[in-house]
């Protein structure tokens, strides 16, 4: 069982993600963030529960939907928001936009907008850990759509073959844009595929941050002990539509009933109630956490909005590293 400090830490992380996403959602309509956004509201528990057990020098790779992981791994919030505004001060200097978040200081080596594309990359940093004889762990976050790609198969086979220190976190929110899992897989258990290779694989409630934390902790220690990869399928749901700020609920889109069910499974609400019931959290603490986070967010957005944009003459910079 985690000590209170960590329990609160998880809560803060989840709240920060939620509040940052809400703020982005709120500001997006002003068309100042001229870049696609993929909000992770509803999926906060996964990034929080996994990253709790990672060191600063462990690696993570995200996807088009990476805000949560960037925040959970300790990425610089100012630089993240500045990237949303495509400013020179952004984490990718305005070249990448919301789908390309990076912060090497804390092991975030980038995220890809190509579905399934980050699976080999993270498997590669894990190979590096092995060749460099360090105990750095790599975590790759991807969705239920990414497992459709051949890279999933090729990379998992390789990771097991070489017993690499890598953790595959599949955030199964059942949807790939408006394509339901049932239109892409004949079964509902992605973890069985990974299991077929012989990789320890699990399917868990991705909205239960304690469960996520528990399974992640074991996976991380397996990696540190050189026992090889682990696959964890986290069942969850994205509240917002695939992209932008719409909801994608209703005819042709996601059923209202499904949506309502998952709203009732709000990972943050459940966890807050749990922490309060167990006396770890009280309303006063909750308020101050709120204020603390709001302050961070205000600072980040102010920083971003007041930052300069790249200059046209800088177009060719960074095509090649020296």
């Amino acid at each position, binding site marked *: 069982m985690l000590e209170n400090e960590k329990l609160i830490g998880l809560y803060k992380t989840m709240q920060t993600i939620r509040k940052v996403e809400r703020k982005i959602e709120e500001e997006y309509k002003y068309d100042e963030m001229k*870049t*696609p956004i993929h909000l992770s509201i509803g999926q906060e528990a996964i990034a929080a529960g996994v990253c709790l057990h990672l060191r600063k020098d462990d690696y993570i790779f995200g996807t088009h939907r990476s805000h949560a992981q960037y925040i959970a791994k300790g990425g610089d919030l100012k630089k993240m928001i500045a990237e949303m505004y*495509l400013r020179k001060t952004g984490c990718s200097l*305005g070249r990448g936009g919301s789908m*390309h978040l990076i912060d090497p200081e804390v092991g975030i080596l980038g995220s890809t907008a*190509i579905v399934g594309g980050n699976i080999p990359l993270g498997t590669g940093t894990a190979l590096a850990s092995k060749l460099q004889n360090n105990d750095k762990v790599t975590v790759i976050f991807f969705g239920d759509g990414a497992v459709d790609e051949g890279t999933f198969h090729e990379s998992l086979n390789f990771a097991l073959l070489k017993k690499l220190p890598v953790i595959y976190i599949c955030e199964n929110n059942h949807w790939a844009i408006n394509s339901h899992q049932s239109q892409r897989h004949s079964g509902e258990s992605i973890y069985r595929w990974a299991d077929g290779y012989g990789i320890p694989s699990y399917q868990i409630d991705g909205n239960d941050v304690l469960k996520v934390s528990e399974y992640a902790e074991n996976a991380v220690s397996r990696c540190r002990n050189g026992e090889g990869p682990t696959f964890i399928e986290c069942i969850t749901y994205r509240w917002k539509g695939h992209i*932008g700020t719409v909801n994608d609920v209703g005819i042709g889109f996601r059923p209202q009933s499904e949506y309502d069910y998952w709203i009732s499974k709000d990972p943050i609400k459940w966890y807050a109630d749990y922490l309060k019931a167990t006396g770890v959290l009280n309303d006063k603490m909750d308020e101050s956490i709120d204020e603390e986070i709001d302050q961070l967010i205000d600072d980040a957005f102010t920083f971003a909005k007041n930052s300069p944009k790249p200059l046209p003459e*800088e177009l060719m910079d960074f*095509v090649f590293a020296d």
Partner: protein
Amino acid sequence: MPWTTVQVEKLENFLFKDNSESDRVISYKDAIFETIDESLARDSSVFVFGEGVDDPGGVFGTTKGLHEKYGRERVFDTPISENSLTGIAAGAAMAGLKPIFVHSRMDFLLLSLDQLVNHASKWSYMFGGKVKVPLVIRTVSARGWGSGAQHSQCIQGMLMNVPGLKIAVPATPYDAKGLLVSSIMDNNPVLFVEHRWLYKTMGNVPESLYSIPFGKGVIRRTGSDITIVAVSYMVIEALKAAEKLQAENISAEVIDLRTIKPIDEDIIFESLAKTGKLLITDTGCKSGGAASEISALVCEKAFHLLKKPIIRVCCADVPTPASDVLEKAYYPDSEKIYTQVINLLKS
């Protein structure tokens, strides 16, 4: 809603007056939609599939509701497995069907080049013509709104290096329909290159099905001082540039190749015979792109007609930046074409 819509909605409507009898004016998007609709109705061997074809959005409206009309057996969503789906389409084609496989972004085509280049495009030749692969790959290229390096590529130029593949690059609603019909009827793999910024473009389109032959370009605007060969969306930017140039008393002829594999060489040569000067503009990166091949072709076969250097106005040789400021610097547009023409004529 796909973010590029944010951008596209900002574009003004561009109207093409085609040399077609029809006075019915519809959009590029609707032209593609009705062609697929009518093809499904006409030929039971045609089927359409790809990520999101049954989406409420229906690949930006081009397949919207067709799964309800023709059933999910012939219009279906797929797993995200571009390479295998391309091979699956090729296999179905070998068995006598006419698959239309859709990529909502051209970038995803890069995942499927093994099946497209190593297999589909080579099958007829490798087996002495014993099997046909009548396959249409639709790709939509995006531009703007921070689409970024992985959601905005136009790699049709790369694929001109692939024997056995045909490439259509329609710029008008009329051509979108006529070339899509030809592509579906063709017994070979055809890459059908669409551009998101053309979707709102309006033009005359006959209701009945008609086909436009591969390798026949068209002059979009006649002129005598310089020839501008434009590919895909760049046709619109070229026409805008020509308009501006007119004000400077520079008469630019704008050629729309319609297909870049095969290429209509004669239409370029005939124009050059008048103008002696050539500017080529493409939606892809400059080096190793479509403009390079067209330039090389001219320099090999029509050098005697050239009075000046051949200018290429394309994307810079840089992965697409997300920043709006950098996008402006990165993309070719009417202003850049205009400036280059002025410089060329001054030189």
